[in-house]
């Protein structure tokens, strides 16, 4: 009897969590097809006819495709930059030298410092560099913001490459750079891919600095773009629903295709 109710409680618990994770999204997508009167009539109703009018209207109201392109550029550039410089740093730290511990501690310390209190100086730096209101300024800030996590994932992975492999390459006459390009990079590639997925998702999703460092649609990301539907079109719910659903679609689609890789990559960021 106790066992039966424990099992029931377990499934009720899991079922509730799954429902909370999925029902709001499903509701949002279904609602995006409704007209305003339909939305106000009942939260549960199914749209009378499934038309894409709201989606078309949302695309007309805001340059969502431009926002999307900007998000892709920012996330791709920032992720590449973070991967390249953290791989280089992790490789350098495989060598023994006096300040090794200090350098490693310095790079990891960033994990504990949130960047939001630094809004003003970062804004100031980006403006001085002439990168205010550009995708490049955002990409630069994101590459620094994600550096500690990228470094952590890559370093953990790189430690699994045995020293003998590097030694063998050196005996064959490979230089410092040669070992990096021909041994480290190929062997660490799976780790780099893991890190890239994690960084991509984080860069893609950032809102605060995107809001702070861009003002015109030519440089704004998708996250900033969708929030304009709330401020500018508060009364036009269907359009806002449609825009939110569209902004959500690419990530959900990518996840549907790669869910196991994505989960593994998130798990790899686990601090050891």
């Amino acid at each position, binding site marked *: 009897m106790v066992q039966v109710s424990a099992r029931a409680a377990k499934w009720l618990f*899991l079922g509730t969590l799954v429902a909370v*994770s999925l029902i709001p999204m499903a*509701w949002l997508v279904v609602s995006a097809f409704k007209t305003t009167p339909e939305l106000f009539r009942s939260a549960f109703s199914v749209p009378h006819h499934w038309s894409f009018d709201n989606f078309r209207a949302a695309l007309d109201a805001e340059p969502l495709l431009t926002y999307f392109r900007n998000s892709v550029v920012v996330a791709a550039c920032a992720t590449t930059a973070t991967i390249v*410089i953290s791989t280089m740093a992790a490789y350098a730290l495989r060598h023994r*030298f006096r300040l090794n511990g200090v350098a490693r501690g*310095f790079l990891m310390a960033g994990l504990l410092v949130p960047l939001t209190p630094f809004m003003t100086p970062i804004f100031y730096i980006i403006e001085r560099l002439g990168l205010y209101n550009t995708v490049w300024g955002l990409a630069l800030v994101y590459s620094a913001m994600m550096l500690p996590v990228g470094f952590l994932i890559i370093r953990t992975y790189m430690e699994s490459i045995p020293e003998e492999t590097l030694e063998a390459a050196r005996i064959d006459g490979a230089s410092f750079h040669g070992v990096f390009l021909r041994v480290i990079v190929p062997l660490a590639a799976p780790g780099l891919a893991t890190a890239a997925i994690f960084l991509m998702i984080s860069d893609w999703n950032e809102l*605060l600095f995107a*809001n702070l460092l861009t003002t015109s649609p030519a440089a704004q990301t998708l*996250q900033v773009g969708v929030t304009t539907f709330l401020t500018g079109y508060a009364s036009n719910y269907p359009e806002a629903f449609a825009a939110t659903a569209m902004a959500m679609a690419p990530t959900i689609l990518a996840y549907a295709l790669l869910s196991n890789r994505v*989960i593994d990559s998130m798990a790899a960021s686990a601090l050891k």
Partner: protein
Amino acid sequence: MAKARQLIAYLGPSIVLSLALVVFPLGFIVVMGFTEWAGLGPAKYIGLQNYVFLYHDPSFRSAVVNTLLWGAAGIFVQTPLCLLTALILSRRPTMWKLIRTLLFVPSVVSTTILALMWYFMLSPEIGLVNGTLTDVGLKSLTRSWLSGPDSAQWAIMVPFVLYIGFGMVLFLTQISTVPKETLEAAQLDGANVWQQDLHVTLPAIRRSIALWALFLVGYVLRMFEYPYIMTDGGPVNKTMNLSLYVYDQMVTANQYGLAMAAGVVTVVLGALMMSCVLVVLRWIEVS
């Protein structure tokens, strides 16, 4: 043997980037927190006046209290939910992989979109929450969740607390590293499933739990989307938090000096919260 020049070339970019966008800003806000500055023109040294202002500002007090509240909600509500789910799924019940995949969906969607979605969910007229309450005959419980002074702060924490995918996956990975033999030994000693979880698995992953708590503290200090999108800090600053306060002082009020002083308080508060987590961990390790 690697030469110093080569090491510098490989370490240089990461060190320079961290110096420019972490260390320099940290020094900058500490110094400029003592000034009055509107971003343009010279800054004026005003001593501790910014900090005195913050101390007396009800909106800032609300920001500090709510930031601590977010942290507490993360550590005492969200984390246990993550752990419980991970413990259940680690026993590989039917469809455990599917459940893991589904629970993780909100973790890949941006917080911006989750915040917008829950803004709609909690809308008094068209939201699913009030709609459901009305349809099951609990119309008396419906309310304007996000504009009620008593409900707003709890309402914006709902998605944060219930979306457990990330933590669950991390704990699940850690639990899988607990040696099977230890669990079997406990089982032979007559421990039931719950006792095994409580006395073997949880102590074995305590460091991961503490590190997760550190991560949550950092996350909560960065937390911006939920208050910014769902309530904009309102009603009457009831949902203000530190990130939004710094943002508002800088972007809306153009009070750069004050924004940076608030930033310094954020850094200090973060360090204190993280120290608490580490002290608790040490205490657990010793006892």
